[in-house]
């Protein structure tokens, strides 16, 4: 027996025209196979329609609030890690490209000579810088160095506080809100 289109219609009862519904009923009256399937679907649909929505265990919102600062910290860490990975990868690619460039444009002997010259130049530059700093230190009184040191220290501590305080504030904010919603 041909079960179409009745087999389709029995799952779309709410969209049938009256003539289609009548034809389906007539088919169901004579087709036991479709009737069983239809009854089966009606039972399942009844179960679905009457099933209660399931609530989360109490305190869902409080758990959300408690986790929020942790999730934010994790995300910041992840972003920092991604940024570092990106930077590291870009540096590696650039270093590799530089090595390839040097190898294809210069002989190893020339490269070695250039490297020695570069190290020599750097050493001379450092020696000159050291002499200049020594002259400055002889001219400037020691109290100025102490003041500069204190300013630098205060600046470092201040920068650290600027970084740490918002995190502490966020953590406390999350906890206090938990109390409100618990």
């Amino acid at each position, binding site marked *: 027996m041909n079960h179409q289109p009745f*087999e*389709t219609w029995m*799952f*779309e009862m709410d969209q049938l025209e009256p003539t289609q519904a009548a034809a389906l009923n007539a088919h169901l009256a004579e087709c036991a196979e479709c009737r*069983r*399937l*239809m009854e*089966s*679907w009606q*039972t*399942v*649909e*009844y*179960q*679905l*329609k*009457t*099933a*209660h*929505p*399931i*609530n*989360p*265990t*109490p305190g*869902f*919102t409080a*758990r*959300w*609030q408690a*986790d*929020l600062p942790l*999730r934010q910290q994790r*995300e910041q860490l992840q972003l920092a890690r991604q940024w570092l990975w990106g930077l590291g990868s870009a540096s590696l690619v650039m270093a590799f490209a530089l090595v390839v460039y040097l190898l294809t444009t210069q002989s190893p002997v020339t490269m070695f000579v250039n490297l020695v010259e570069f190290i020599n130049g750097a050493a001379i530059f450092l020696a000159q810088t050291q002499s200049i700093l020594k002259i400055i230190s002889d001219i400037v009184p020691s109290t100025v160095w102490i003041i500069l040191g204190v300013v630098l220290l205060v600046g470092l501590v201040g920068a650290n506080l600027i970084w740490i305080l918002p995190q502490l504030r966020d953590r406390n*904010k999350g906890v206090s*809100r938990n109390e409100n*919603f618990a």
Partner: protein
Amino acid sequence: VSFAETDWLRQAQHHDDEAFTHLVETYQTPVYNLCYRMLGNAQEAEDAAQETFWRAYQAINRYDPSRPFGTWLLSIAAHYCIDQQRRKRVPTLDVDLMTDMDAPDPAPQPEKVLGQQQEKEVIARVLDNLNEQDRAIIILRYWQEYSEEEIGQALSLSVSAVKSRLHRARRQLAQLWLDSPQQVALERNHHESPAF
């Protein structure tokens, strides 16, 4: 969407955590229910629901206010649960585990708890046999009473795809019910239990 909700949404888009918390409070049940029906486990449903709200929190500035917030949220939840299911690819139903983990009412009536538990088992059993996307479609259709257009929006499917999948899922559920050895016992419960 209430005025208060519109207000919370606007404030949440301006990084107001408290306003977003009101949204969590409002939508926790539909989101959790979807996750529970999809994953069949209380702890996984809790994690999935929390993750859904976190994803929504991160993407709140990309939310289009012309679209219902609930649909947007359930779309995130459904996609997340579908991904979780695909990763696991193992049977999701553990009725014993569910019985242990679900918190009963504070003052449960034995027959009510029994009826609801049986109901959960029946629903979980039939849904467990559907693939992830078809299950999401059935859940959105019957618990959220979404139209085919809304289901399409939530699951990034065309209306014709939703119709075709909905028909396939219904056909499969009916056939599974017919073939199920527990059918007789469950139907007996259906007729006898006051919960049904």
